[in-house]
């Protein structure tokens, strides 16, 4: 038997894509997922179902997480890189920040030769995927599968209120809707966790589609490689229950994420010829961009003890995540910085995270072994660009200025990190940054889209892998540059858009 589409990975993109493609009963879709599947809210483990855990204390159980490790900088310690291994993918284990990329991100993509990805063209897909319970206008959707809400300002916990008020007092714009195209400043993050439930693509999308006979969902199936007849992808080799199987499809779509997708491409013979040769993998197509251009949002955490009478957020409230988006002084990249604060209950620390929403630097993903069970090496290579260090240094100092404001009186106590010595000079602070910098969990761009004139582009604007046939990549890998936003919503949007490309025969 031959499916019309085999989608590898039931994550933020794959679940969306499989749902949309199987709306057409003439298409038969096989959706392969390495992790388990929980078909309904009743059977879903609590740590997946409820979104109380923020990004920093991600769900880490082996069975729902790939548990990758990576290098941040030469000075940093090995960094944990959680990625979802369950239907819903990372949308099933993430911090539920439902933030769109900004119009300027798409201007940037278009300027790199991707004229199908202007803000105007992608807006309908942002609207299609969401039900925003706070805003209903030309920019927001009200009938999409993913449900979005924001914590009202009058319900903020004392630490969140202090952060919000300090930002306002410091002159940042009050921003009730971070998903407005012109938004900048401080406001509550939009969150896809109605009633505290992490509204993953498994809940939002697959629940609409899993009854369809033309959609076959196979959890606990590890895809080992894509199979080719010459340069045409014909199927995949899959491990299930300890046995190996070959399944055929008219088209193979990799939605295995910015780590899984380039890894699978390389295991299948598509990637930099020298890397593949080194591991004895027969070359199908030399595509030098595979694994290169690794982007993320580097972040550091500035922390203070909470004053004794500041209450931790009750579990049912969860992390509220008031966020400040701003443009670094002296930067010409709008909204290139992010600050968000949270109360860490385990040690009663108030942690203000400052991140680069658009770093200039980039890293790389490389094959370490021809064995599919060995993860690729991940070198995030943070802060090699002086401008990235400068913006992050200033971001740290800005955190200290905010906390010195009267709005934080009675909330914040002794500073823990960075210590005074680290703040003594730019060099000292740089050293602290290089040791401390870590991931905001937004790895992307490892198989970027672009025109044929760009030798590092891996796929075209419709996700089709260059130089071969019947193979697409649709997930965070194909972003040409990272978005100035958490990547989950842009990835869902891209899947919605490419599903329509496929339906239109493009």
């Amino acid at each position, binding site marked *: 038997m031959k499916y019309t589409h085999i989608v590898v990975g039931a994550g933020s993109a794959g679940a969306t894509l499989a749902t949309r493609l199987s709306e057409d009963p003439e298409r038969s879709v096989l959706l392969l997922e390495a992790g388990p599947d929980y078909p309904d809210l009743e059977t879903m483990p609590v740590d997946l179902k409820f979104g109380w855990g923020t990004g920093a204390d991600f769900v880490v159980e082996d069975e729902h997480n790939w548990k990758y490790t990576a290098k941040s900088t030469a000075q940093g310690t090995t960094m944990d890189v959680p990625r979802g291994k369950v239907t819903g993918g990372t949308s099933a284990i993430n911090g539920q920040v439902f933030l769109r990329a900004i119009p300027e991100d798409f201007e940037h993509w278009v300027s790199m030769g991707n004229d199908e990805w202007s803000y105007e063209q992608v807006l309908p897909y942002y609207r299609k995927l969401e039900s925003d319970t706070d805003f209903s206008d030309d920019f927001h959707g009200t009938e999409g599968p993913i449900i979005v809400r924001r914590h009202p300002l009058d319900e903020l916990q004392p630490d969140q209120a202090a952060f919000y008020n300090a930002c306002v007092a410091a002159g940042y714009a009050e921003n009730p809707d971070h998903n407005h195209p012109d938004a900048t400043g401080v406001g509550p993050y939009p969150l896809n966790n109605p009633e505290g439930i992490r509204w993953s693509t498994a809940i939002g999308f697959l629940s609409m589609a899993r*009854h369809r006979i033309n959609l076959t969902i196979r959890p606990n199936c590890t895809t080992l490689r894509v199979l080719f007849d010459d340069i045409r992808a014909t199927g995949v080799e899959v491990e299930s229950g300890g046995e190996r199987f070959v399944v055929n499809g008219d088209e193979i779509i990799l939605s295995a994420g910015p780590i899984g997708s380039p890894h699978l491409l390389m295991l299948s013979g598509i990637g930099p010829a020298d890397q593949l040769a080194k591991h004895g993998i027969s070359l199908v197509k030399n595509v030098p961009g595979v694994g290169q251009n690794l982007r993320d949002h580097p972040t550091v955490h500035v922390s203070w003890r909470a004053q004794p009478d500041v209450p931790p957020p009750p579990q049912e409230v969860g992390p509220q995540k008031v966020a400040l988006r701003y443009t670094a002084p002296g930067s010409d990249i709008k909204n290139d910085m992010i600050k968000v604060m949270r109360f860490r209950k385990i040690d009663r620390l108030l942690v203000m995270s400052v991140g680069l929403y658009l770093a200039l630097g980039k890293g790389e993903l490389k094959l370490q072994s021809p064995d599919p069970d060995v993860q690729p090496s991940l070198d995030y290579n943070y802060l090699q660009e002086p401008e990235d260090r400068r913006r992050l240094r200033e971001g740290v100092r800005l955190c200290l200025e905010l906390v010195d404001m009267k709005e934080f009186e009675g909330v914040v106590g002794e500073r823990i990190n960075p210590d005074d010595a680290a703040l003594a000079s730019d060099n000292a602070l740089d050293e602290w940054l290089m040791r401390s910098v870590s991931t905001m969990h937004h790895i992307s761009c490892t198989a970027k889209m672009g025109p044929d004139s760009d030798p590092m582009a891996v796929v075209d604007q419709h996700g089709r892998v260059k130089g071969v046939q019947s193979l697409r990549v649709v997930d965070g890998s194909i972003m040409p540059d990272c978005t100035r936003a958490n990547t989950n919503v842009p990835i869902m949007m891209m899947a919605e858009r490419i599903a329509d490309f496929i339906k239109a025969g493009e």
Partner: protein
Amino acid sequence: MKYDYIVIGAGSAGAIIATRLTEDPTKSVLLLEAGPDYADMESLPDEVRYGNAIATSIMTSDHNWQFTGRATDEAEPMLVPRGKITGGSSAINAQIFLRGDPGDYDNWAEWGNDRWSFEKSLPFFRKLETDTNYSDDFHGTDGPIIAHRFQPDAWLDSSKAFYQACLDYGFQDTPDHNNPDSTGVGPLPLNNPNGIRWSTNIGYLSLSRHRLNLTMRPDCVVHRIEFDGNRATSVVVESDGEVFKVEAKEIILSAGAVGSPQILMLSGVGPADHLSEIGIPVVKDAPGVGQNLRDHPLAYISWKTKPDHKLDHNNPRLQFALRYTAEGSEFKNDMIVYMNTFATERVNRGGNHMDPTGIRMILGLDLEVGSGELKLESSDPHAEPILDYNYFEEEFDLSRMREGVRMCVTLGENESWNDIIESRIDPPDDALESDDALTDWLKREVTTGHHISCTAKMGPATDPMAVVSQTGKVHGLEGLRVADASIMPDCVRSNINVTVMMIGERIADMVIHG
């Protein structure tokens, strides 16, 4: 999308066929099941997982189609449970792992189905079982279904009393009811190791559910099969309120002795006049579909127990059976008596499977002369078919049951029961006063042995009532087989589950090897 095979029904036959066909990785199988699926032991609900609570515990469960049937004019409508879950009725049954008499299969062969003689069926009986008590030419030791018999140290007092009473009566001691020559009294072979109901879901689908060439779809109700001319091409199936069509090179109907003839008729394959009457266009006039309905009618002979006799609902409720030949009958082992060590009132009379009424013997007519019929009420696939079991139309069936009841009453008077039985509840003394009185009682009290079968019987094309050939292919059509209890030409002289599993193994082998 087109599968090589669509198997309709993941029950005692369908789960086996799907498992065997997908051993070839180049063959793709879609296995459709109307009920839910439980992928592992941990997620199996207790009522499905544990076999000590027999039939009554699942009488009103969602894992059951909850059909009703007519027994006789005098009896109340009877509950007809059939499994609606992966494993089918093997997932909700009493786990009696009893083969038919060799003569049953030899009869099938004699009626034009030469590939179904006992000798030719035996390898498939062996293939499907791991018998933990016997290992010889008649028993298998590496099959997916695990069978055992309770050993003497685990025999309950009422099992022992029954055994002794039968021996005293003169019946033969039968340590292995699955020996082809067996008759008499002995421990039942049961497919419930450690109390777990070892269904075809547990035994077979656990071997195959990881296969990428096997697609299992629970919670999918089949509406009908569609044809191109006389070739079956696709199945119309309802999933979560939406209707889909899915194609296959061959369709195998394993929806059971109720579901398979029902789906055949909904698809236009059945008695032409009946189909016209309910407005279904005729694809193929097959007068045998739904006819020849066979079962094992039962009567309960029950006793109140003495206060000192403990009735524990956690104990096994069936350990022993007696198989015997009725006086003057030419059918060997045409009667069966099960010793039920924990009796409860019928659910449709307000009973609860945890509240004991005492103990009872369950008398079964293991080879009826009479037959009933299955018809459609409407062309709506959700409408329950009409099940008319039509018991006791034949005097020979009645006389054998009357004689059996009297014999059970006598068995209950043996001194082996002195510490157990206080008094007989059923039948009451007045029902025993005359044959007429006992006939009246039987017609009121008779109920199903849960072995509905033979509603789409196999036979040569020369038999106008034969629906399928001996390879399960529907006569006059292409690309469509039936493989389940429906195709038995006559009921077997035993609980039918093992025979249905054997049919699954046998037909799978015929599909693969011709």
